[in-house]
C-alpha cells in the first residue's frame, strides 16, 4: 500500500504490449498519420493519388496483420485491449468493408478530386470563396486520413477490454464521422446540417455512455469489464447502481447502431452525408458498434441480464417495427435505406438477445452480410444522377430498369437481399439470427422480426416495381458510368451478397469458430 502511494520510490514497470495483437490498429493509425503528412507536404496534384494509395495499402496491410494476429490472441495493454475470436473476426470485417468504402469514396468520375466531397469544406455554401476554391481546383483529400482515423477507432471499439478504452474508441470513430458527414459536394447545407445534428446528438449519447460507465465504476470499483462481471456475483451495497449503469452504457452504444428510440438522427444524417460516407457509416460503424455491444453484454454484464434484458427486448421490438413501418412512407432512397438500416439493427439485436455462442456467431454473420450489401447499395445510389446532383427521390428512379438494366438489376438484387429472399445473404443472415433467438427462448422476438421483415419486404418491392414496372417521368435521370473504383465496390458487394446466400458455409463456420469471447 505504501509502495504504491509513493510510486516514485518503486521501480517503473512498463506495461507488456503484445505488438502482434495490436498491429492492425497501429498500421491503420500509422497510415492515417502518413495521410495527414501527405496533406501537409505533398503538392496538390499528387495528393489524391497518394491518399488513395496510402489508405488502400494501409487497409490491406492491416487486414494481413489481423490474419497474423490470430496467433497473438490474448489480453494486452494492461487489459485495455482484448484480442480474441470475435474481436479479430469483426476487425477483419471492418477492414474488408472499409476497402470497399474507400473505393467508393475515391470515385471521381471525370473530375479532379473525389466526386462526393466538396472542394473546400470551410467555404460557406454558395459563397465567393467556394467558387474560388472550385476554380483553383481544390480538393478535400483530407477525407481519406479522416476515414482511416475512424476505421482505427472502429477496430479498437469491439476489442476494448474496459469501459474507458471503449469510450475513447467511440470518440475516435465518431469525431471523423461528424466531419465527413458535412463534406458533401452537393446540397451542402443539408450535409452541414446533418453533420451538426450528428455531432450534437452523438455528444448527447456519449454523455449517457459516460454516466453509465461512472455508475458501473461506482458499483464495481473498476472500469474493467472482467472486474465488473466478477462483481455481479457479490453483494456490494451499491447494487442499485448496476442496472441503471448498464442501461445508460447501452444507450450510448444503441445510439451508434440507430436503435429506436435513439434512432432519430439516422434518416437525417444518412440523407445529408455524402453517399459513400453514408455507406461507410451504415456498414462499418454498425459492425464496430455491434461488436462493442456484444463484448459489453457478453463479457461484462451478462450475468445480470434478467434485470435489464426486458428493456433490450422492448428496444429490439420497437426498432424492428418502427424501422419497417416508417420505411413505408419514405420517398427518398437514402432515407429509405436509413430506415431499412434501423430495421436491420433490430434484427441483429434479436440474435444478440439469444445470450449464447450461437447468438454471437449469428450477429457476426449478419453484420458481414448486411455490410457488403449496404455499401454496394449506397454506391449505386451515388451513380444515379439527375443533372449534376444525385437523384435520390424515388420518383426519379421510375423506369430505371428499362433504361439501365444492369445497375437496376444489381440494386434490385440488393433490395431482395435486404428483404431476406432466399439465395441472398440476407436470407441466411436473418435465418441465423432468428433461429438463434428461437433456439434460446426469444421466440416472440423472432415472430416480430419475421412480421417486420414481411412489412419491410413490401417497401423494397415497391422500389423494384418503380424501377421495372413504372414509366420514367423524364429522361433527365441517368446513370453516370462509374470508374473501376465504384464498379469494383459494387461488384464485390453484390457478389458477396450472392455468395453468402448460396454458399454461406465457410463464413458461418468461421463465425462459429471465432464466437468465443476471452474473459
Amino acid at each position, binding site marked *: 500500500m505504501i509502495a504504491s502511494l509513493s510510486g516514485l520510490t518503486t521501480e517503473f514497470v512498463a506495461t507488456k504490449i503484445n505488438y502482434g495483437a495490436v498491429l492492425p490498429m497501429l498500421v491503420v493509425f500509422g497510415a492515417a498519420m502518413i495521410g495527414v503528412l501527405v496533406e501537409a507536404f505533398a503538392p496538390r496534384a499528387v495528393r489524391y493519388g497518394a491518399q488513395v494509395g496510402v489508405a488502400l495499402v494501409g487497409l490491406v496491410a492491416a487486414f494481413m496483420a489481423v490474419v497474423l494476429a490470430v496467433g497473438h490472441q490474448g489480453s494486452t495493454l494492461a487489459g485495455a485491449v482484448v484480442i480474441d475470436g470475435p474481436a479479430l473476426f469483426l476487425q477483419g470485417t471492418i477492414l474488408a468493408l472499409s476497402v470497399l468504402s474507400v473505393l467508393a469514396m475515391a470515385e471521381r468520375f471525370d473530375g479532379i478530386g473525389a466526386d462526393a466531397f466538396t472542394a473546400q469544406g470551410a467555404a460557406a455554401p454558395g459563397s465567393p470563396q467556394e467558387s474560388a476554391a472550385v476554380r483553383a481546383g481544390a480538393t478535400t483529400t483530407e477525407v481519406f486520413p479522416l476515414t482511416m482515423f475512424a476505421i482505427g477507432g472502429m477496430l479498437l471499439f469491439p476489442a476494448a477490454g474496459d469501459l474507458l478504452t471503449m469510450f475513447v474508441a467511440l470518440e475516435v470513430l465518431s469525431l471523423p464521422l461528424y466531419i465527413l458527414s458535412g463534406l458533401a459536394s452537393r446540397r451542402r447545407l443539408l450535409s452541414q446540417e446533418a453533420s*451538426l*445534428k450528428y455531432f450534437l*446528438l452523438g455528444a*448527447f*449519447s456519449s454523455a*449517457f455512455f459516460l454516466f453509465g460507465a461512472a455508475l458501473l465504476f461506482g458499483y464495481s470499483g473498476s472500469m474493467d469489464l472482467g472486474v465488473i462481471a466478477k462483481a455481479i456475483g457479490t453483494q456490494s451495497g451499491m447494487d442499485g447502481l448496476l*442496472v*441503471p449503469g448498464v*442501461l*445508460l452504457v447501452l*444507450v450510448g452504444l444503441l445510439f451508434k447502431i440507430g436503435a429506436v*428510440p*435513439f434512432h*432519430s438522427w439516422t434518416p*437525417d444524417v444518412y440523407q445529408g452525408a455524402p453517399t459513400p460516407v453514408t455507406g461507410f457509416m451504415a456498414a462499418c460503424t454498425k459492425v464496430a458498434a455491434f461488436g462493442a455491444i456484444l463484448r459489453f453484454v457478453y463479457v461484462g454484464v451478462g450475468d445480470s441480464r434478467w*434485470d*435489464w434484458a*426486458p*428493456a433490450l427486448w*422492448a*428496444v429490439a421490438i420497437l426498432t424492428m417495427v*418502427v424501422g419497417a*413501418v*416508417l420505411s*413505408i*412512407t419514405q*420517398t427518398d432512397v437514402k432515407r429509405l435505406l436509413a430506415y431499412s438500416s434501423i430495421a436491420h439493427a433490430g434484427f441483429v439485436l434479436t440474435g444478440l438477445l439469444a445470450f449464447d*455462442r*450461437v447468438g454471437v456467431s449469428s450477429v457476426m454473420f449478419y453484420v458481414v452480410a448486411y455490410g457488403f450489401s449496404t455499401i454496394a447499395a449506397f454506391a449505386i445510389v451515388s451513380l444515379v444522377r439527375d443533372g449534376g446532383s444525385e437523384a435520390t*427521390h*424515388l*420518383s426519379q428512379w421510375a423506369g430505371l430498369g428499362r433504361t439501365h438494366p444492369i445497375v437496376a438489376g444489381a440494386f434490385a438484387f440488393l433490395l431482395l437481399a435486404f428483404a431476406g429472399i*432466399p*439465395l441472398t445473404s440476407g436470407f*441466411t443472415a436473418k*435465418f*441465423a439470427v432468428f*433461429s438463434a433467438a*428461437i*433456439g434460446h427462448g426469444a421466440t416472440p422476438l*423472432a*415472430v416480430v422480426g*419475421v*412480421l417486420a421483415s*414481411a412489412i419491410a*419486404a*413490401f*417497401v423494397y*418491392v*415497391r422500389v423494384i*416495381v*418503380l424501377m*421495372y*414496372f413504372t414509366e420514367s417521368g423524364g429522361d433527365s435521370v441517368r446513370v453516370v458510368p462509374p470508374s473501376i473504383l465504384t464498379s469494383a465496390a459494387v461488384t464485390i458487394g453484390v457478389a458477396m451478397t450472392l455468395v453468402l446466400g448460396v454458399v*454461406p*458455409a465457410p463464413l*458461418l*463456420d468461421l463465425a*462459429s469458430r471465432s*464466437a468465443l469471447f476471452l474473459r
Partner: protein
Amino acid sequence: MHLVQLSASSAVRLAGAGAAQPASGVTSLAWLLVVLPLLGAAILLFGGRRTNRFGPALATVLSWASFGIGAVIFLAMLGRSADQRVEVLSLYSWIPAGGFQLEAGMLVDPLSMAFVLLVTFVGSLILVYSLAYMEHDPDRRRFFGFLNLFVASMLLLVLADSYLLLYVGWEGVGLASYLLIGFWNQIPANASAANKAFVANRVGDFGMSVAIMLMFATFGTVTFAGVDAGVAGANQGTLTAIGLLLLLGACSKSAQFPLQSWLGDAMAGPTPVSALIHAATMVTAGVYLVVRSHVIFEGTPTAQTFVVVAGAITLIFGAVVGCAKDDVKKVLAASTMSQIGYMMLAAGLGPVGYVFAIFHLLNHGFFKAGMFLGAGSVMHGMNDQVDMRRFGNLSGAMKITWFTFGIGWLSILGVPPFSGFFSKDKIIEAAFIGEGWRPWVFGGAALIGAAITAFYMSRLFFMTFQGEKRWPRDAHPHESPRRMTVPMIVLATGSAFLGLILGPTNAIASWLEPVTGRSPEGEPVIAVPVLMSLTLLLVAGGVALAWVQYWRDKVPVAAPAGSLLTRAARQDLYQDDVNEALLMRPGLHLTRSLVFFDSRGVDGAVGGLAALIGGTSARVRRVQNGFVRSYALTMLAGVVVILGAVWVVQ
C-alpha cells in the same frame, strides 16, 4: 444446442413402405433437372440482346432436356420395387454452422417425380406454344428467361428434401410469377395486379417462415424426414400451430380462401403464363405442401379440419364467381381456384384423399392448361378480345381449338371416360366418407360445386364456341398456327386419356404408396352407385341450364344488370373490399398514426396500393421534424422510460 446432421445416410424412415436411400444411377443426375432451365434463364437474362435470336428456342430446348432427364429417372424408378423408390441426393452442405446443420439435398420419390413430369412436360409444351404466341413481342427474350426461371424454381420446390430448400423454390416461383404477371407493365393495372399477388404471397411467406423456424425449434431439423420422425413426440399445440402456418402458406400460393383474391388479377399476364403458372403448376404448390407434410397434418386434426374447410369454401366460392364473369380468362381463373379447392379438400381428408388430390392435380394440370391455351388461341384469333359476350359460334372458324377445348370442358365436368371424372368423382366419394356432420357438409359442398362447375364451364363453352356470332366488326377469327395447336392437341389427349390410364388401373394409388401410405378402405355415407348417378345428374342439370340460357337463347352483348348475387360475384364476392376493410385500412391508419402525416397528397407511383405506401415530401411529420432538440428529447424520453420501467419492475 441442437446438433442435427441429416444426410442421406441418416435420413429417417418416410411414412409408407420404403426408407430413403442415397441416390444412385441416373437419379444422381437429378440436379440437372433444376440446373438446365436455370442455365437457360441465366443465359437469356444476362446475355443481353445477343441472345435475342436464338434465346427463345434455347429456352425451349433446355426445358425439353429437363423433361428428358425427368423421364429417364422416372423409367429407372419404375424399374425398381416400390420400397426402393425413395432416394435422397445430397448436394452440398448449405448452412453448416453451430446449432444449425443443413444439407441441401433432393428428395427423388414418386410424389416429386409426378410433379417433375407434370412441370417439365406441360411447361415445355407451353414454351413451344409461346414461341408462336409471343412471336411479335419485342421483349420475347425476357419472357422466355422468366419462364425458364419459373420452371427451375418449381422443380427446386418439388425436389427439395427440406422445408428450407422448398422455401427457396417457393420464393423463386413467387418471384417468377410476379415478374410475369407484370410482364406487360405498360398497362398500370398489370403492375398493380403484380403487386397484389406479391402482397398475398408475402402473407403466405410469413406463415411459411414462421412454420419453418417453429419446426427447427421443435424438432431441431427442417428436413422432411427429420420432421416426420419427430412428429410423434411433439406436443399437440405446436403441431397445430405448424399446421396452420403451413396452411397459411398453402392458401396464399394456391389462392385459397381467404387469400384467393390475387389470382383473378393475375390473369393480366400473358396467357401462356396463366396456363403454366396460374393453372397447371405453381398454384398447386399448396396442395403439394399439404400432401408432403401429411405426417404433420395427421398429427393435428384441428389443422386438418381447417384444410378441409378452406378447400370447401374455396371450391364453392370460385364456382360462384365463375358463373358471373364475362372475361374468359377470369372465368378460367375462378375455375382454377375452385378445382384447387377440390384438391385441398381431398388433401385435408387424410389418407383417403391424398392420392385423389394428387391425381386431380395431374388431370387438372392437363385440362386446365389445355383450356387456357385454347383461350389464348381464341384471343389470338379475335384481336386479344377477352369478353365472352363478343364471341359466339367460333366452332366453325377454329376447329382444332374448339375440339381440344371441348375435351377439356368434358374433362372438368367429370364426364366419363374423360380424365376429370376419375379423380373428381373419387374426391366426392372420399368427402362423403366419415361420421357425423362432416361427410354431409363436405360431401354436399363437393357435390354442389360439381353442379355449379358444370353450369359455368358450359356457359363459357357455349358462349364462346356455340350460339350465334356476336363478333366485333373488325374481327376475322382464324385458326392459330401449328406451333400453338400441337401443344393444345397433346394436352387434350392427356385430358382425354390420362385418367383412364391411371385411375381404373389403380396405377396412381400404387405409385404414390411409398409416400402417402396405403389409402384405407372406407364406405361413403351414400352408396357409391347412387352417389355417382347423383353427381352425373347434377352435372347434366348444370349443362342443361347453361344450354337454355347461353346457346338456345340469345346472349346480350352488353351484360345485363343481373341479380344481387350476380353483381356480387362479378365483384369477386366483394373480396377486395373485405381485404381493404380488414387489412389495408387498419394498415393505413397504423402507418398514418405512426408518422402523423397529413393525408393531402399521396403519390400514385405504384397504383392501387399507393394509398397505403405513398407519401409526399409536403407532408408534415411531427415526430421526424428535423429539429435536433426534438431528437434529443426523444432520446431522453427513451432513456427515462427505459430506466423508469426497469425501476418500477424491480
